[in-house]
């Protein structure tokens, strides 16, 4: 109960300070839309084939976008210590960050889903699986965002560079633009280590079909990634916290 109040306080703080800003909201829609257009325009391919990729990409880029910058930003502005002196564990603080990123990712992914259905005309064949995938995917990518925040620095651009170095290549081998059933064997091997692959496959199954991996496997692996990333992230954050304060 006590942790829940603290988690809620951190989540509300994150929403106010980092998410409910015009540029952040616009970025969440604009960036995936640009990448989508870059692949669709001039390729004479049906737009609905890219629907799973569009939804997965929007979810991935929004849920993991801002969390990496929060820790260094709060070190720089000397607000981190304000949180650490409160009766709030480091894990609760991170859950609050994840909850805010989750809500942002969830909200921002609704827009491409609506565009996919009402503008592009893509079908929703398995709505329940789609909802479960979007929720689980938002949690997984939000947790991934906290992992990018592990390096001890008070320069947000340092972690954003690391975050983008990992996230941008991921969209090219996770079945976002080309279904993993159509990519080379070595590309498929690479896609196995990306949680985005399983999210995209589940959305493909829920919408246009043609998925390469079974939905049950994808759900299990995505949940497994979420747990593993969380354990790694909290362990590293606990280890690094005193170094952060010494900076």
């Amino acid at each position, binding site marked *: 109960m*006590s942790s829940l*109040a*603290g988690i*809620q*306080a951190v989540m*509300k*703080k994150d929403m*106010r*300070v980092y998410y409910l800003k015009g540029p952040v909201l616009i970025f969440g829609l604009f960036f995936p839309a640009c990448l989508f257009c870059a692949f669709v325009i001039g390729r004479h391919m049906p737009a609905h084939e890219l629907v799973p990729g569009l939804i997965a990409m929007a979810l991935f880029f929004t849920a993991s976008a801002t969390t990496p910058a929060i820790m260094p930003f709060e070190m720089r*502005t*000397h*607000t981190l*210590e*304000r*949180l*650490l*002196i*409160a*009766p*709030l*564990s480091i894990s609760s603080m991170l859950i609050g960050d994840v909850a805010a990123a989750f809500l942002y990712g969830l909200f921002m992914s609704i827009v491409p889903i609506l565009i996919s259905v009402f503008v592009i005309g893509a079908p929703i064949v398995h709505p329940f699986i789609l909802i479960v995938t979007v929720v689980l995917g938002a949690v997984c990518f939000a947790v991934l965002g906290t992992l990018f925040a592990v390096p001890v620095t008070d320069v947000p651009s340092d972690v954003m560079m690391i975050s983008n170095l990992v996230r941008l290549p991921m969209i090219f081998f996770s079945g976002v633009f080309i279904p993993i059933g159509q990519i080379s064997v070595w590309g498929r091997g690479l896609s196995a280590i990306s949680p985005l692959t399983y999210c995209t496959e589940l959305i493909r199954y829920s919408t246009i079909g043609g998925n390469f991996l079974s939905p049950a496997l994808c759900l299990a692996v995505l949940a497994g990634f979420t747990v593993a990333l969380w354990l790694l992230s909290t362990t590293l954050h606990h280890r690094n916290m*005193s170094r952060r*304060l*010494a900076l």
Partner: protein
Amino acid sequence: MTEVIRVDTLTKRYDGNLAVAGISFSVRAGEIFGFLGPNGAGKTTTQRMLTGVLKPTSGTVQVLDHDMVRDPLGAKEHLGVVPEMANPYMEMSGWENMMLAAELYRVPRAERTGRAESLLREFELWERRDDRARAYSKGMKQRLMLCMALVHQPDILLLDEATSGLDVASSRQIRARARDFAADGGTVFYTTHNIEEADQLCDRVAIINHGEIVAIDAPEALRATFAESQSVVVAFDREVAPDELAALAEVKRVAKEGDKLQLYTADPGLVALHVADFAREHDTAILTINTVGPSLEEVFVRLTEGAISQEDEDQ
């Protein structure tokens, strides 16, 4: 008297460097306890271990019945902290910052707004409550931090350089609140490098140097430790060379302080009589004459420089 903070052989090492070297002390309920030391002495590291922000390498911190390492959340609930290196959220208003603090410390929903309003009014921030904290002056931000530290009605208030760099009015307000807090039964742990402030405010002070506690006592008792630092300060109607007065009996040394001469002695009453005789013999008038006890600053400087001579110790 009940001890509300108990520190036992507290040690902190950073990458092999000893920042705090096994210090032990306790703070009693209702007192204002000053924690003094030069820059880099280990004050902030100690404060951070007391507030649970840093884990000690060894040793214990007990806050009331809670061990800070084993039960940090229980211990932290009793503390209201204004850290030296911390800020309110600049993108949030004063009111939103207060609500954040109230939520973090689980102040009941029904009491949050009433307490926040009362504190913001007390610290003259009520009219600016909807402004973002970034628009506040340094003094206003620090007063807001104090409001945030008090909103959950803690038993112990820890202030780390709370008045450093503030205007006189804000500094006075913060000191006055610390006094009122202690008068109402609370305990204040006041970390500062401002010795005059500690002297005015604190019931007891601990002086830390190179990570070790070198003295703990009431300011008056610490001054008494250095009785030979008493002095007679005199101003004449004409210039008198310090050497002329240095020859007087019981005078240990003479320092020129502006238009006055300060004669250090263990017996200021006798030296004052000698000065009066000197003035009569040399046909000069005394404009002012005062006896002065050793300042806490002198005590601090001598303790932290390790300049206590064997002669001092004998006395």
